[in-house]
């Protein structure tokens, strides 16, 4: 009898244990759902981990104002966000708002995203992402790709950035600066890194993006259409682009050219060791943030951007919303839309611009950032000298699995210029053959 009692007690314990586990697991996965049903919680997956703390601050402000709790989940640093989101989708754990980086991403979620064309913010911006489903992408910042320069060094070297209008003037400017390297305290003329493991996006997406768009009107899709038509490249334009890449290889920091990291690249630029750097406006936040000490020591120099003028007459820089926030259709749509509307308004924009270093895509926003590149971008935008980012529409994994490596091989010298062009074409066709 005693034995039986003991066994019953044990069974009871096991059962409560199981039920307890079950309920905690249940509330874990259902908590969001049940709470959001009462309209109190929304979840946002953010793809810019560098502005995590600013977004959390905004979420707090929003909760104070409206009582809706916004959970910020930041991903970045090499995580494939789309892959992670798919896992969330499979496990029925979708966030209400999540980041999408371009056409391929939006196509994946085709039919699952909320059309926000009835929202107030839509009329306040030109940067929203629109496709056959309607307005599905909320823009939150503007970024620019151009050849960033250290204005102080260029001035000391006697090079006027406005004089660089084509390949010859660019080569001449590089040569001039190179000859005065020692007196200017430079390690190299240009901080161009073609490392294929962690920086493939810099070469494969951004630099190659200049081939697709430099000098074109914002809605001109000539070269991206060619590329997406089975991976075709324009021979003449690409040869000019290859010349520029060759020039960068020659004047770059040889010890870091194929092995350097993003951090080293930005730190060296911020310390005044490079006159140019092949990164876009987002480095402004790093220069004034993580690398603030080095930047101050180097004299808090002025920064600017010139077009990647690989053909004579190219006079635009590439600006775009780098990614958008989309609202999941089966999530808490009303609350999510209300939050996004609030994000586009003055209070939130002030935090985003002043603290996160964003350049607002909203016309009503009057706050100007003290980011080193803000002025340049404003100048180009008001002069109408901007092109779009059509590289966002390239095939999946194009930079990471295909061309990033070709840039690295060109940089390390295992491919010459002709080899680079030939291989680039071959690899591009292979990427599009899938």
């Amino acid at each position, binding site marked *: 009898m005693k034995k039986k009692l003991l066994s019953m007690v044990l069974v009871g314990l096991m059962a409560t244990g199981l039920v307890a586990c079950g309920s905690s697991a249940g509330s874990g996965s259902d908590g969001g759902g049940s709470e959001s049903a009462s309209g109190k919680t929304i979840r946002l997956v953010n793809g810019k981990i560098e502005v995590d703390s600013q977004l959390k601050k905004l979420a707090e402000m929003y909760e104070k104002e409206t009582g809706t709790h916004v959970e910020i989940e930041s991903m970045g640093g090499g995580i494939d966000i789309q892959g992670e989101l798919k896992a969330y989708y499979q496990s029925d754990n979708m966030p209400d708002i999540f980041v999408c980086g371009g056409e391929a991403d939006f196509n994946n979620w085709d039919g699952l995203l909320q059309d926000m064309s009835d929202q107030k913010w839509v009329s306040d911006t030109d940067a929203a992402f629109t496709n056959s489903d309607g307005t599905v992408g909320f823009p939150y910042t503007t970024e620019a790709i151009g050849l960033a320069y250290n204005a102080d060094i260029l001035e000391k070297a006697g090079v006027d950035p406005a004089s660089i209008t084509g390949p010859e003037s660019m080569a001449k400017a590089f040569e001039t600066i190179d000859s005065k390297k020692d007196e200017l305290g430079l390690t190299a003329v240009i901080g161009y890194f073609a490392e294929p493991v962690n920086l493939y996006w810099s070469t494969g997406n951004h630099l190659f993006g200049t081939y697709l768009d430099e000098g074109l009107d914002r809605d001109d899709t000539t070269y991206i259409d060619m590329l997406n038509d089975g991976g075709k490249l324009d021979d003449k334009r690409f040869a000019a682009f290859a010349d520029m890449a060759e020039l960068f290889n020659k004047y770059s920091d040889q010890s870091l050219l194929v092995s350097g990291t993003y951090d080293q690249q930005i730190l060296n630029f911020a310390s005044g060791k490079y006159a140019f750097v092949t990164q876009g406006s987002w480095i402004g936040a790093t220069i004034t943030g993580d690398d603030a000490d080095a930047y101050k020591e180097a004299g808090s120099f002025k920064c600017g951007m010139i077009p990647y003028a690989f053909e004579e007459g190219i006079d635009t820089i590439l600006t775009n919303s780098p990614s958008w926030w989309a609202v999941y259709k089966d999530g808490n749509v009303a609350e999510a839309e209300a939050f996004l509307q609030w994000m586009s308004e003055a209070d939130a924009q002030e935090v985003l611009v002043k603290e996160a270093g964003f350049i607002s895509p909203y016309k009503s926003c009057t706050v100007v950032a003290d980011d080193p590149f803000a002025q340049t971008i404003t100048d180009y935008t008001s002069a109408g000298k901007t092109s779009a980012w059509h590289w966002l529409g390239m095939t999946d994994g194009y930079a990471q699995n295909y061309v990033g490596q070709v840039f*690295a091989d060109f940089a390390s010298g295992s491919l010459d210029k002709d080899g680079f062009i030939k291989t680039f074409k071959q690899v591009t066709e292979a990427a599009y053959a899938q």
Partner: protein
Amino acid sequence: MAMGNKQKPLSIALLALGLLSLIVALALDFTGSDSVFRGELLVIGAIIFLGGLYLYPTQKHHKKIINFIFLFPLLFCFAVTVVIPFGLGLFYSTTDWNGIRMTQFVGLKNYAAMFTEVSFLWSLILTVLFVIINMIAVNVIGLALAVLCTSNIKFVDFFRAAYFIPNLIGGIVLGYIWQFVFNNVVLSWTLKYFDYNSSMLSKYNTAFLAIVVVYIWQYAGYIMMIYITGLTTVPTDVVEAASIDGATAVQTFFKIKFPMIASTITICTFLTLQSAFKQFDVNMALTNGTGSVTFMDQYLTNGSQMLALNIYNTAITKNNYAMGQAKAVLFFIILSIVSIIQVRVSNKREVEM
């Protein structure tokens, strides 16, 4: 049987109740209901069902029922975490699934396509090469370290711990640490002595070598621990007898100890074989598969990409989940063949011993 008569209706009632709650719980789940109770309902239903099964009055099948009840939790976990996902994987590998939805069945097209994909064949060959090199290198070095750490040198415990520690560091962390070493320290040497500006990680052949080195560094200590266990189980009287007979240390090792630890060698060989085959984290952190190579007249950009990483990349970065799944099925088949051989061989040895 008097008790049985009373028990039977109770048992049937419990069985019915349990089954009903199981069905309701599953139905709630499939219809996407937000009911928070469906998890509890499922567990309670299963317990009631098993209770009913236990109380069912039968002499003939009682033992089987008890066995089933005891095995149930394990079988359930195995089904949920292995059998069902595997079945789903097989299913998805015959579709055009992209991780979100599928539009059509493609039959065995993914399987056919994967063998015409030169970059995949390269990964396959590279992996086999990696396995062979490591199976030999890790075991030789591991055994050498084990001999060192069972000898009479000073600070033996310190060495044992020191060799084992790399194994305690996660592969990703280790990969990044070594990436720093290769990209900064080794590069500055090659630049200074050979005027060679590329890092070891930028060429596929040197990158492969780098992965091998890091893998040995990580895994040899672990294998060493197993060899130490093997070496300490060699009876001292045999070793003593050998030394009385005038055998040198080398002779003692090759003629006495080595045959005595044959079973340990089998275990270690298969352990390294399996783990080298599944190499993923160090590969990803160190080179992420980069490095260019010309193979079968094609320029490939995945010169240092092993099989597991190839599968991951196909699914995640190339957004082709169905193809990744098909490759994973092949990966599974290869690994299970290896495992079956391993079990066979070790069983045979145990009989011999």
